[in-house]
């Protein structure tokens, strides 16, 4: 399937069951609403439905570290149009984490709505709610604050040193060692890695440093809260985690959950940054105090300074192997900069090891350890890739250097050491998300095909090591290999409800949170497939804590796998109820135990679903296998709702899995390095991916393209720059360069399906994995072109030129 100079190749798996909706590129259910600008985002709803709402404006700290010695809000409060000013003096002092994660929460409780102690430039000092945004902005300037400035930690390397300023002297619950600024610590070992590294033929050890970068969703964080006619506080928020947001706000403000409802409308991109409760507490508190609708929308500058970033990391990577390139030992130490607060500090760092090291499971001695340290810099959090992105930078570049040292082809070296079907890794069990993990055995992998097809697409054998030159520009190719997960095993839980309508259509309600990924669409596809109907027969409502069942939210690449599992179970359950009524209508026997059997997701393929030998769904009808007679599902509904044995045909099912099958990827980059200017241009990129069965190939491709684009930006241009006081100096989309259309090279996407037996309709995740490739693949391509190894990101012209000069001198 070619289209112009770029390609999308999708290889399907013939062993997967035949499907009619799953695997089809159907239109997104919200496509036309979004294409015509429907009022579907939080601020659209605020503008349209609450014209008299109050507008919130936040006063951020101008200093990196200090104590508020006095704060006077009288003048601001006196300004006409101002309704409320919140500071630490008049808000609950509950300690909590802004990280929207499962329970018990793995991030330290080091945050309060407001505190006297400001810890980074942009930290919350106060918020004003006023009739207009202009009044609120003006009032913020009238708040008089005096600070006692404290020495700041602006370098993660210095955070743990003796005598460093202590950023959280209150010793937050859940922080590892606040007296030494360590928010989180992890140390897991399999075998004896230090001994193994001294005994291997070859040992390579390198240090990589990744930088501050941001998600920059096109819609900034926005939250609206209003009291309904009965006093319930309704929060409409651009969140990835409605249930976690409700739980956290309920705790902070002491509002019972009967009085709190969180609604997620459409969200203008998340990528992890909206897995945080940053504004919901403020608008809910203000709506309670004022009785008015209250809204806050981050400005783009606030989004940069005060929302969330990727954790910058320093990673020491050591690999020991024999002369033939067989890995024996892997050792990874991570120093993660978690900024002023420890949001996701433990879990992101854990993922840096748990989502990378199992890929090379032939090493029998492995140690992964690290510290996440507080600094007086902006706060990192969840960001697509979730630590794996940084881990792969160190791992895949070190392997590339190892291949050069061994005189081996980097692809061959990886093939020799990579995890294969039927194999596991002790790391899966040793290292989970902030706690022990769950043992995994790989049941599906297209990695060998991905490596071969990707190499072919980039022209590996013709280009690698050739250093094709045109004047002062030289070309090279590089590659990298990856895995991720599909949800957090035995932690992430999703649920789905289905109701049958009289016309034979269904109402699907899901907790799953579509943040633009298309989850409403692919989950409806999964239901339609089980129920033997087209997409027109499924109506979807998602992410409303009052109206839809629970879901942990859109993170950890969980939605397709975990929420999909819940949808498939719900669809099978309601289907069986329909079969039972149809059997009565046909006067046929159907064993009740078959109807009531707990639906199994993995029955799709490996074990036939026993009830299907009696009935199946076909085009809106129940078809009897025994008699070949049909009953329209609509007739089943009418009979059940109006005539005989009247009852609702509906179900709610939940899914939690001990499995988290990794998707796999092989990425290839061809770059041209300008040796005169240091500019690196990616001229061609290939992302070859295995995500199990692609539920919707076009959306799969979009996930990969989007992640790769973000990843190339991360590798080349996107970087926070700081002034001497820890102040970000490029907080705009003009100065912080994300990639535009003309910046993008042609990107080949190759998807090689396989059937994952534990996944809904054979699917695994695809959302995050694509962002992990560009940094190492481009770094390895620069190495191929020039022989310089860049140990710090991003690969800016300055950095490349400095390395070229260092090499030549």
């Amino acid at each position: 399937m070619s289209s112009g100079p770029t390609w999308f190749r999708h290889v399907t798996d013939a062993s997967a069951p035949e499907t009619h909706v799953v695997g089809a590129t159907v239109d997104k259910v919200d496509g036309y609403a979004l294409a015509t600008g429907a009022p579907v985002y939080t601020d659209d709803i605020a503008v349209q439905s609450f014209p008299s709402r109050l507008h919130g404006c936040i006063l951020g700290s101008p200093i990196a570290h200090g104590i508020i010695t006095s704060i006077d809000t009288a003048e601001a409060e006196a300004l006409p149009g101002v309704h409320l000013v919140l500071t630490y003096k008049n808000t609950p002092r509950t300690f909590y984490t802004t990280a929207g994660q499962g329970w018990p929460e793995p991030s330290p409780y080091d945050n309060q709505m407001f505190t006297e102690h400001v810890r980074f430039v942009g930290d919350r000092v106060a918020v004003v709610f006023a009739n207009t945004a202009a009044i609120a902005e003006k009032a913020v300037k009238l708040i008089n604050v005096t600070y006692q400035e404290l020495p700041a930690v602006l370098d993660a390397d210095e955070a743990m040193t003796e005598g460093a300023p202590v950023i959280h002297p209150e010793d937050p619950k859940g922080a590892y060692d606040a007296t030494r600024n360590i928010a989180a610590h992890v140390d897991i070992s399999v075998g004896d890695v230090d001994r193994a590294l001294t005994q291997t033929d070859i040992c390579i050890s390198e240090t990589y440093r990744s930088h501050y970068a941001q998600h920059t969703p096109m819609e900034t964080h926005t939250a609206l809260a209003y009291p309904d006619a009965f006093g319930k506080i309704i929060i409409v928020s651009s969140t990835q985690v409605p249930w976690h947001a409700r739980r956290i706000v309920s705790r902070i403000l002491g509002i019972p959950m009967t009085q709190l409802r969180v609604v997620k409308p459409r969200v203008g991109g998340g990528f992890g940054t909206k897995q945080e409760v940053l504004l919901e507490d403020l608008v809910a508190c203000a709506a309670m105090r004022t009785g008015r609708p209250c809204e806050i929308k981050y400005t783009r500058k606030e989004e940069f300074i005060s929302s969330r970033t990727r954790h910058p990391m320093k990673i020491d990577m050591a690999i020991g192997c024999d002369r033939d390139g067989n890995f024996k030992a892997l050792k990874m130490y991570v120093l993660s900069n978690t900024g002023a607060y420890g949001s996701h500090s433990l879990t992101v760092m854990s993922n840096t090891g748990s989502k990378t090291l199992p890929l090379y499971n032939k090493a029998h001695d492995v140690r992964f350890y690290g510290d996440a340290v507080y600094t007086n810099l902006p706060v990192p959090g969840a960001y697509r890739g979730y630590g794996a992105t940084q881990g792969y930078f160190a791992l895949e570049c070190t392997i590339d250097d190892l291949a050069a040292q061994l005189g081996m082809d980097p692809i061959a070296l990886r093939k020799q050491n990579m995890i294969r079907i039927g194999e596991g890794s002790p790391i899966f069990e040793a290292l989970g998300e902030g706690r022990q993990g769950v043992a995994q055995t790989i049941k599906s992998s297209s990695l060998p095909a991905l490596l071969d097809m990707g190499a072919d697409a980039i022209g590996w054998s013709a280009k690698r090591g050739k250093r094709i030159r045109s004047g002062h520009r030289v070309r090279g190719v590089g590659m990298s290999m990856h895995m991720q997960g599909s949800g957090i095993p035995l932690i992430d839980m999703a649920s789905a409800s289905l109701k049958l309508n009289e016309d034979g259509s269904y109402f699907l309600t899901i907790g799953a949170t579509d943040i633009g990924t298309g989850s409403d669409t692919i989950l409806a596809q999964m239901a339609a497939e089980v129920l033997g109907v087209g997409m027109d027969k499924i109506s979807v409502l998602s992410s409303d804590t009052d109206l839809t069942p629970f879901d942990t939210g859109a993170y950890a690449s969980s939605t397709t796998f975990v929420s999909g599992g819940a949808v498939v179970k719900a669809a099978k359950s309601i289907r069986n109820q329909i079969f039972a009524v149809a059997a009565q209508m046909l006067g046929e026997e159907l064993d009740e135990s078959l109807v009531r059997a707990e639906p199994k997701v993995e029955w799709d393929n490996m074990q036939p679903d026993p009830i299907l030998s009696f009935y199946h769904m076909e085009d809106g009808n129940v078809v009897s296998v025994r008699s070949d007679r049909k009953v329209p599902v609509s007739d089943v509904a009418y009979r059940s709702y109006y005539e005989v044995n009247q009852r609702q045909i509906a179900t709610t099912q939940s899914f939690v899995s001990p499995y988290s099958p990794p998707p796999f990827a092989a990425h290839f980059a061809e770059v041209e390095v300008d040796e005169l200017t240091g500019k690196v241009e990616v001229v061609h990129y290939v992302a070859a991916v295995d995500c199990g069965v692609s539920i919707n190939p076009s959306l799969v491709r979009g996930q990969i393209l989007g992640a790769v684009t973000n990843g190339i930006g991360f590798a080349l241009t996107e970087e926070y720059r700081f002034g001497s006081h820890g102040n970000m100096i490029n907080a705009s989309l003009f100065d912080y360069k994300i990639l535009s259309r003309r910046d993008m090279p042609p990107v080949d996407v190759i998807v090689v399906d396989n059937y994952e037996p534990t996944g809904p309709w054979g699917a695994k995740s695809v959302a995050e994995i694509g962002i992990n490739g560009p940094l190492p693949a481009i770094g390895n391509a620069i190495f191929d072109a020039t022989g310089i190894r860049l140990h710090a990101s991003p690969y800016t012209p300055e950095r490349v030129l400095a390395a070229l000069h260092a090499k030549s001198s």
Partner: protein
Amino acid sequence: MRVSITINAVQCLLEIEPGDILLDVLRREGYVEVKGDCHTGDCGACTVLLDGKPVASCLMLAAKADGHAVTTVRGIGDQRHPHALQKAFVHNGAIQCGYCIPGAITSAKALLDENPEPTREDIRLAMDGNYCRCTGYEQQIEAVLEAARELREGGFR
């Protein structure tokens, strides 16, 4: 001050302040199909057509639109009568979160009005000011090519 702006072919008399920004006025008046967050002209989400030419409404004073015609994405097509571009964006998987889409489609409309047979490079250039963080752009470029083909073959623009 009072201005007269023709918005999506309807003449609107609007009471505004001289310093009001067009984006803010449009949204306040209910044209919330115009999105936009940066207010610095960097992201392109707020793109509207001013007398057929794409402009960043977040950088323009509403007063400057007095006597001119503004077209938003809803003026290009709505859910009942979507424009070929809107259909092509949906069919090509060119929409993820959708926040940038009204601006992107508006820029594409201006391009196709000028150049019914654009090359990929023409599209990349004309829509370069429309950032998208979700899609990686490729499927949007394919959508514009498809819509252009559709419009040419349909014999209308």
